[in-house]
Each structure stands twice: as C-alpha cells, then as structure tokens.
C-alpha cells in the first residue's frame, strides 16, 4: 500500500496510464469501425434479400399475368414474360435459400413459400401444357376453380412474413450501429477524459519537479551563502588572531631587546669600568696580567657586539633611528655581503606609521631570508615607492622560483606575511614558477600626512 502511494506520489503511473488510454482509444475505435462495417454490410445484404422477396412475389404475379394473357389470346407474345418470370423465380429462391441457411425459422418459412410457389408454378405450367394440347375446357376449369387465388394469398402472406422479419432485422441492425456508435462515443469521451487527467497529472508532476529543483537549488545556495559567511568570519578571526599574535611577538621581542639592552648592557658597562680600574692598577707592574686584561676587554667587546646584534635583530633600532629607507638599505647591503648576490635597491621615502614600517621591514627580511635559503639568486631587486596614497613594496629575485600551487617549505612564512599585510589593511601578491624567480608585491595604505 505504501509502495503504491509512493508510486502515485512520484507520478510514476502517469506514463503507463497515458499508454493504456492510447491503446484503449485505438481498440475502441477499431472495434466500433469493424462492427459498424459488418453491420452495414449485413444491412446491404438484407436490402438485397428484401428486393428478392418482393421480386419473387412480383415474378409470380408476372408469370400468372403472362399465363393468363397467353391462355386468353393464344398469342405467344405473352409466353415471354411468363418464361422470364419463371427464371427470375428460380434465381430469387436460390438467393434466399442461401441467405437464410443459418436461420432455421426463416428457412422453414422459406421452405413453405418455396413449396407454395413450386405448386403454383407447376399449376401454371399444367394449364399452359393443357392449353397447348388443346384441352381448353380443362384449362378453363382449373382457372375457375379459384385455387390460383388462394395460392396467391398464401404466397403473399408468407412473403409479407419474410419481409416483416427482414424489417425487424434491419431495425435491429440499425440499432446495433447506433449502439456501436454510442459505445464508441462514450468510450472516446471517457478515454479523452482519462488522457486529459493524465495530462493534468503529468503537468502537475512536471511543475512539482521544477518546484522541487528550485527548492533544492535555493537550499544549496543558502548553504553556500552560509558557508561563505562562515569562511569570511573565520578568515577575519584568523587575521585578527594573527595580528594579535604578531603584536604579542613584537611586544615580546621589544621587551627582550629592552631587557638585554638595559640589564645586560648595564652589567657589561660595569664590567668595562672594572676593567679600566684594573688596567690602571696593573699598569707597569704586571705586563702579563695586562695582556690577559686586554684579552678580557676584547671578549667583553665581543659580548657587547653580540648583544647589539641580537637586539638589532629583535627590534631594528635603525628603523626608529634612521628610518625605513636606510634600514632596508642596510638589510640589502648585509645580505649582499653575506650571500655574494647583487642587490639592487630602488627606495623612496614613504609615509607609513611605525607598525606598518615594521611590517614592511619584516616582510623584506622574511623575503630575503627565503631567498638566502632557497632561491639561489644571482640578483635581488628591492623596491619601495608611493603613489596616490598607496605604498608599494616589492622584492624580486632571479632564482629558481617555485610552483605557487604547491606548498613550498616556506609557505607558513608567506602566509604569515600575507596576514600581517592584510591586518594593516594592505594586499600581497606572489608571482613565481619553476625557473622564473619570485616576485612579492605588497601594497599598503599610506598613513595620513604626519
């Protein structure tokens, strides 16, 4: 039952129903056609039978009329209608016997009629023969006897019965045709109704299908929209988190740099002061000890230089002291010295706030670190310029490049750069390919005039 409901619900019955209706239409139409054709044929045969019955009666009358004429006039002219009528009687009887062979009742009536006719015919023949033999008296007696009239009445009665039977048959044939036509009419009307119903169901099913598809599309779109919003949200959160982490990292670096600078710096300075005092006391008294002291001072100086380098790496003081352009120049120069690559700097002064300057510095630093580690570049170009309130930074190398669709070993660094740039309201683009070198371009909004 459930399965049937499912079939009805899904409209799976519509096509079979439409086929069934079409087949039904053809069957009904063909059936009616053939039945009507059969009945019409029967009606034609019935008309022939009627005219034969009437012809039979007429022929007998013709025969009798011919016989009377012949007997009265002796003119052989009258024999011709008589003879013709006899022939026609034979033909008509033969047709009727054939026609009624499947109808025992009618055959019985026909047999009686046939018997009466043959009696009548033989009586006519007898009178003609007697007349020809010159026995006119006998002929006259027979004619006066009135037997002929009784026979004719009986023949008429039987003919009329057969005719009435034919009339009934015709009437029933006509009513058969009417029935057939009516049946066909009702059938066609019903099946047309069914086909209309099937059409309506089909259309409804089609529109339902369209509605379902639209609904599904709408749901899919809604899901996509929801995911898009979620992705945007997550991305914003990640950007924020990265921003926060980067800030925390920079703060931590600053704190570390300050501690190194202040605390370690004070200790080293203090040690240098002690060394100066010792040097003064040893002067002239213990040359070997003075030598060790000189070495100690050198070691202290190395420690101080190391401290400076670490602090500079943690927080480029040159950025606040010398500005971005000089700092990037120093960065490029140091890289050129360390790697032996040629570094070409095209740097203009730009308006950026301290945070953005630090981002640009870190970006170039990261790019240069990557070039040093992976690119095997012969030349590096560093660009910094400003147009229309936008600061453009570019770092290009002629190294081995990489497939941007793959995950290079420095992908996290690149992603970190991108997030930092986006957190500052800028954009970053990366162009590279195996053997094509790498170009990193960053655009940042310039800070309002300071």
């Amino acid at each position: 039952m459930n399965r049937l409901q499912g079939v009805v619900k899904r409209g799976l019955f519509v096509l079979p129903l439409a086929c069934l209706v079409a087949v039904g239409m053809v069957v009904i139409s063909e059936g009616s056609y053939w039945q009507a054709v059969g009945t019409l044929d029967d009606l034609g045969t019935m008309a022939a039978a009627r005219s034969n019955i009437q012809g039979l009666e007429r022929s007998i009358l013709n025969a009798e009329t011919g016989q009377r004429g012949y007997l009265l006039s002796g003119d052989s002219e009258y024999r011709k209608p008589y003879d013709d009528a006899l022939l026609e009687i034979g033909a008509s009887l033969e047709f009727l016997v054939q026609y009624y062979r499947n109808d025992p009742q009618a055959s019985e009536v026909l047999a009686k009629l046939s018997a009466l006719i043959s009696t009548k015919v033989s009586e006519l023949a007898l009178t003609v023969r007697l007349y020809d033999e010159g026995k006119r008296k006998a002929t006259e007696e027979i004619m006066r006897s009135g037997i002929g009239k009784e026979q004719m009445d009986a023949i008429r009665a039987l003919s009329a019965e057969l005719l009435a039977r034919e009339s009934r048959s015709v009437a029933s044939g006509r009513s058969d045709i009417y029935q057939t036509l009516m049946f066909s009419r009702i059938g066609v009307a019903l099946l047309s109704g069914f086909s209309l119903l099937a059409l309506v169901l089909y259309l409804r099913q089609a529109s339902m299908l369209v509605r379902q598809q639209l609904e599904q599309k709408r749901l899919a779109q809604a899901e996509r929209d929801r995911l898009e919003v979620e992705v945007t949200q997550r991305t914003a959160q990640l950007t924020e988190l990265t921003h926060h982490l980067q800030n925390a990292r920079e703060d931590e670096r600053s704190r570390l740099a300050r501690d190194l600078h202040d605390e370690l710096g004070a200790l080293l300075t203090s040690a240098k002061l002690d060394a100066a005092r010792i040097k003064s006391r040893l002067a002239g008294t213990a040359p070997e000890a003075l030598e060790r002291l000189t070495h100690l001072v050198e070691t202290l100086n190395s420690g101080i230089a190391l401290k400076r380098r670490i602090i500079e790496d943690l927080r480029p003081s040159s950025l606040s002291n010398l500005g971005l352009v000089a700092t990037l120049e120093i960065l490029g120069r140091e890289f050129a010295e360390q790697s032996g690559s040629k570094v070409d700097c095209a740097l203009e002064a730009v308006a950026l706030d301290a945070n953005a300057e630090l981002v640009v510095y870190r970006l170039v630093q990261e790019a240069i670190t990557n070039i040093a580690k992976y690119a095997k570049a012969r030349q590096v170009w560093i660009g910094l310029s400003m147009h229309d309130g936008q600061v453009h930074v570019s770092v290009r190398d002629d190294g081995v490049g990489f497939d941007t669709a793959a995950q290079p070993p420095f992908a996290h660094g690149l992603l970190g750069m991108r997030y930092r740039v986006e957190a500052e309201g800028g954009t970053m683009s990366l162009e590279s390919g195996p053997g094509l070198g790498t170009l990193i371009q960053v655009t940042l909004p310039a800070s309002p005039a300071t």
Partner: protein
Amino acid sequence: MSSLKTYIVEDSQVIRDNLIATLEELVPVQVMGAAEDEATAVQWLTGPDNDLDLLIVDIFLKRGSGLGVLRASSALTQRHKVVVLTNYATPDMRRRCLELGADRVFDKSNEIDALILYCERLASGDTGNSGHGTLG
C-alpha cells in the same frame, strides 16, 4: 691637578656605583652627587650650591629624560663641561645632544675608556676638546 667637581645622572645603580668608584679611583674627581631621574637632577643643578666642573648624563632615565637635564644645564650661567653617556649613541642622538649643549657623547659599551681619558685631560687642565678616545 685640581679635582673635578662632578655630578652624575644615571638610573642604573650598578653603573652609577661603579662609575663613581672608577672615576674617583682613576681621575681626581669629587663627585658632588648623583640622581636617577630628571626632576632630582634639575633640582640639584638649579640649587644654590651648584659649583660644578663636569656633568655626566644618561639619556634614558626611569623618570624624565637626560635631554631635559641637558636643557636645564645649558640654561645655567655658570660654565661646566657636559658629557652624555648613553647606550643609544646613534648619529641622530649624538646630534641632538650636541645641539642641547653637550660637549661630548660617549657610548656606554664601547667608549668607557675614552670617557676616562677625557676626564683625565679635563682634570689636567686640558679643554678636553682635542682628544677623542679610541681605546675601545
């Protein structure tokens, strides 16, 4: 050789104590006092008994700035030498200090010997302007 009347503005106690001890040992100085913030230093400088030959100032202080001390010092009528001893001896910083009336700027890490040499020359009556310590 007269003793240099010296005042020291330095916020790191380790350096302050050691610097005073070193100067007193190596150079004929008389440390008149020391401060670790701008306000104390300025108050002492503008006080009545501010007889002074040498002022040694650190730029970054716990409160206030050595630059404020330099400004206050240059406003005084009495002449004395002013030396900046700092960890931030960048060219920019040197320029600003000199503009504010400092005579010399020494790096705390690398130019301690030069500072001592400068003080010795001052004490021996030299103007101190001719020599630039390179003793590292």
